[in-house]
């Protein structure tokens, strides 16, 4: 019951995060880097949900992500549908490995995981675009646009964790033991 509820909330949360990302403008002060919340929410969900539910969330997040940002100009696809699903499955499998730690109260791995997954996602996108366009462009702005969203995710992930833990108190189930760090 709690898994089904968690899955529904994750699906809704990821959808809202996509809409929020769409609405928020790029931050000019950090070379046009953007807020990316989806990867962070996915990392949290992948750490707390059982494996089959994590796979379902990876499929959902990857598909939505590809559909949101699919760029086809003059019948030329830069990043095909489906690759994000594979990315989120890999990140999800790593997050599942951190689950025993989370049950013992070690929630802090969510911070580096969110940061690495967010920046890794952007780095992969950039790499695939560069391969497709047969030219690598290296500018300061590129580094900022890849690293800054990861740093922002690292900053926001504890807030996300604390907010969900607070909300968790209102739902039935065994309370988790959280060790402070």
């Amino acid at each position, binding site marked *: 019951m709690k898994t089904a509820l968690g899955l529904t909330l994750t699906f809704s949360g990821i959808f809202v995060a996509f*809409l929020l*990302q*769409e*609405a928020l*403008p*790029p931050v*000019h002060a950090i*070379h*046009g*880097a*953007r807020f990316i919340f989806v990867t962070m929410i996915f990392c949290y969900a992948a750490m707390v949900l059982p*494996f*089959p539910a994590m*796979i379902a969330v*990876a*499929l959902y997040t*990857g*598909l939505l992500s*590809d*559909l*949101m*940002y*699919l*760029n*086809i*100009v*003059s*019948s*030329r*696809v*830069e990043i*095909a*549908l*489906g*690759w994000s*699903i*594979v990315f989120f*499955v890999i990140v999800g*499998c790593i997050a599942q490995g951190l689950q025993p730690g989370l049950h013992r109260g070690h929630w802090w791995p969510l911070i580096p995981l969110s940061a690495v997954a967010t920046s890794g996602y*952007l780095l992969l*996108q*950039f790499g695939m*675009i560069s391969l497709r*366009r047969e030219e690598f*462009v290296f*500018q300061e*702005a*590129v580094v900022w*646009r890849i690293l800054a*969203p990861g740093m922002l995710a690292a900053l926001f992930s504890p807030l996300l964790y604390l907010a969900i833990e607070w909300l968790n108190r209102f739902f039935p189930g065994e309370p988790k033991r959280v060790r402070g760090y």
Partner: protein
Amino acid sequence: MKKLNIILILAVVGFAVYLSTLTPMEMQGIQARFLSFLSPFLRTGTAVQEQLGSVGAGLKTLDELEAENRKLNEQNRELLTTNNLLRETEAEINRLRLALEYRERSVFRLLPARIIARDASTWWSTVKINRGFEDGIDVDQPVLTDVGLVGKTTTVAKNESIVVLITDETCRVGAKIEGTREQGILSGVRVQDSAGIGELQLNFLSKNAAVEPGQKVYTAGVSNGVFPSGILIGAVKEFRTRPLDGQAIVEPSVDLSRTEDVFVVVGAK
């Protein structure tokens, strides 16, 4: 790892591989349906943004209002003078147009559209507009404003479309420079300066081209191309000589980060 988990991973990866083998047309079809589903949420978001913006605009101090009023009065006087001058010019232009049957040759059928979402991704310069195939829009139709070229449509859903902007590296336009015989291929750059108006590069010009900053750049109207001839794109900012060709850096005439209303060229009149 449990057998079931391995089967699940294989099934999802298999599905992802299947998706990646779809043709661009099929992918665009799926994206168009998704865009139609997303449309009410995007429109609500735009409406909320507008409401919030108008609230913010209303909160001004008296000093600011006074300064704004003074500025508007000055602008009004200037515009009245310009308007009188333009009236004469307009009459002259209309006479010449009629004489040359210009209207029949170069006036497009324009469909007004509004931008409902912009620059959603880190690496592509695109916007979403509130018109789709139900309004008569098709893939690869030019999008412009009264000031100049904006881009072209890519994915077209029922009531929304994605427009790739000329500042995107993948949007290529055949372009010519005013007052010269120089023609080249214009495109955006991979990473645009997010705070500026954007930058375009016009490649494959002659090395010894007589190109000066400020010269206007127009679409060249390549046969079977997307963009008709004569649409203003921008002005030359800088000319560089490279080992094999010349390159002009062009500043777009339309401020793509602020534009809200555009027109889609749906055909000729």
